[in-house]
């Protein structure tokens, strides 16, 4: 039996808007094993960040269960939730706006420690902050600097140190390297990997960058308009993508090698509106293989062990 740390069942988040009901997350289900990484991939507006935030209840879900280590997070009251959140942390996308500009590096990292009243004395907190800074590779001399004095890579390290402060078991990384240059991006990815190996952390890695997610994740779930359309172990997904959207997405990655002429699938149009979506396959309007069958919502089905696809035309295309 696999050691499951997180199980998400039919998680749903609908927002009421003037024009109707916005289906941001629409019945998402998956499991995450301890010490593993699940990549959540998709384009802007597909609901990947909302999914991440709904799991942590930073956004209250409309429906569904989030079972973290045996407890449904959605049923906890405020103080229980506060306690549970020590084990679940978030690393934000933008290291420029997710750090308080009026606090020093050490104050930012100390904040979760103070909020949870972990230590009694200032000295203990400082010692812990120094330890955390060393873990993420921040020089001790940066202790009293402000975020604006630092570059993006170092700021993202602060965000990681802050997330690690409570010794969590599970971290959601929401596009942690999107704002960084490639050479810095590689430093941060290696750091996250090392931390995972040392501490047995479980990650949900949210990104739009497919080559990064392939490198980083054990399993990948591809999202489109609030739904998971395909989910498989990374190698399997890249070798045998089945859903037409996954195929198009993978073929669209520019590969930095010459002579590698791959067939590129250009999908027509742009992502359709998530407000009051009709009960048809969410990809229907852009799909090159759409037919009459696709006018009903497809369910995720397992086509090979671990490989799930939501498409009516599996086997036909």
């Amino acid at each position, binding site marked *: 039996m696999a050691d499951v740390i997180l199980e998400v069942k039919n998680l749903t988040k609908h927002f009421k808007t003037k024009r109707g009901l916005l289906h941001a997350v629409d019945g998402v289900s998956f499991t995450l094993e301890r010490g593993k990484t699940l990549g959540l991939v998709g384009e802007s507006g597909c609901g990947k960040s909302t999914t991440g935030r709904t799991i942590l209840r930073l956004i209250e879900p409309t429906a569904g269960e989030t079972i973290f280590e045996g407890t449904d997070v959605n049923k906890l009251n405020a103080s229980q939730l506060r306690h549970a959140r020590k084990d679940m942390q978030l690393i934000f996308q933008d290291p420029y706006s997710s750090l308080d500009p009026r606090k020093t590096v050490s104050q930012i990292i100390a904040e979760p420690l103070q909020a949870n009243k972990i230590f009694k004395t200032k000295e203990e907190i400082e010692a812990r902050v120094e330890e955390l800074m060393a873990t993420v590779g921040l020089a001790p001399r940066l202790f009293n600097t402000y975020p604006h004095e630092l570059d993006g890579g170092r700021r993202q390290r602060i965000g990681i140190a802050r997330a690690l402060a409570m010794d969590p078991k599970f971290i959601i990384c929401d596009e942690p390297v999107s704002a960084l240059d490639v050479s810095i991006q590689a430093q941060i990815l290696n750091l996250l990997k090392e931390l995972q190996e040392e501490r047995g952390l479980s990650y949900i890695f949210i990104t739009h960058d497919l080559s990064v997610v392939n490198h980083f994740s054990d399993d990948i779930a591809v999202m489109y308009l609030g739904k998971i359309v395909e989910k498989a172990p990374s190698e399997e997904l890249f070798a045998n993508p089945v859903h037409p959207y996954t195929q198009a997405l993978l073929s669209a990655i520019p590969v*930095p090698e010459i002579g590698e002429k791959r067939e590129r699938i250009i999908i027509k149009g742009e992502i359709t509106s998530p407000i009051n979506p009709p009960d048809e396959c969410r990809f229907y309007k852009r799909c090159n293989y759409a037919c009459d069958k696709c006018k009903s919502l497809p369910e995720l089905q397992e086509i090979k062990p671990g490989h799930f696809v939501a498409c009516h035309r599996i086997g036909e295309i």
Partner: protein
Amino acid sequence: MSEKDLVLDLKNLNVKFVTEDATVYAINGLNMELERGKAIGLVGETGAGKTTTALSLLRLVQSPPGVVECDKMEINGKDVLTMGIKDLESMRGKDISMIFQDPMTALNPVFTVGEQIAESVFLHENCTKEEANQRAIEMLELVGIPGERAGEYPHQFSGGMKQRVVIAIALACHPQLLIADEPTTALDVTIQAQVLDMMKNLREQYQTSLIMITHDLGIVAEICDEVAVMYAGTVVEKGTLEDVFNHTKHPYTEGLFNSLPNINDRKAKLTPIKGLMPDPSNLPEGCAFHPRCPYATEACKQPQHLRQISDTHYVVCDRYNEPDFHIEREEK
């Protein structure tokens, strides 16, 4: 050399920004040539000077604090540096035009997209307003937007559509040289694929020369003929795609490739470049890359020289003075 039909000839460009506190050396002795109809990729990380190079070519570097100096800057055979304001205005948008990175801010929110395309046509093409509007509609259709949407405002378009409008403006007067500054960075991959595909077709159709500014080596492999890799305001390696991708010479170029996750080999460990980009107001002596370079020696603190490897391939690295010097990637 003089027989080459050059659309761009740039020699020894230096751009600095002088402020009270410090002088920032943004571009340091940059040379670039581009043959008509060719596409060159200008690659580098944030702060390498890619955008400043582009702005210098359009004479859009703000002065003060910017100081632009160079030995030669010719676009389409015209000397840009000594041009008066009238000539400059007639050159911009006609001989050379630019696609900006962020389509969300590059368009004017209070004019319709049709008006914004027609404006450039009307200014350059000696035609009536009606003809300009007609041309605007044709341009929209060319970039895949229905012509009847010409009367709509930028906020009514999505990000990918806005970028198409920006491209339509840039191409409206059939420029000889097009500078695209990270044209797809703000877009999703499937939309990026659409836009790149369209740019490739348009380039074939109009024989436009292109400078593609990007940090994405994948995009370069896709649409460029040549590559120039920039670091700290200068080109450290230049050559054809084949030269730079398959016979990499400069340690920084190698570092860039090693930092990228390999899509065909997910287990390969990333090897980041150690350290950070240097502060452009306080550049290291000699080769600006030497503090981060795994191959650096004492000699790298001396001024470096341009070295020609083949007819098309150039590198700035004096370690190649040693006959057996090679970098790891080269062995591939």
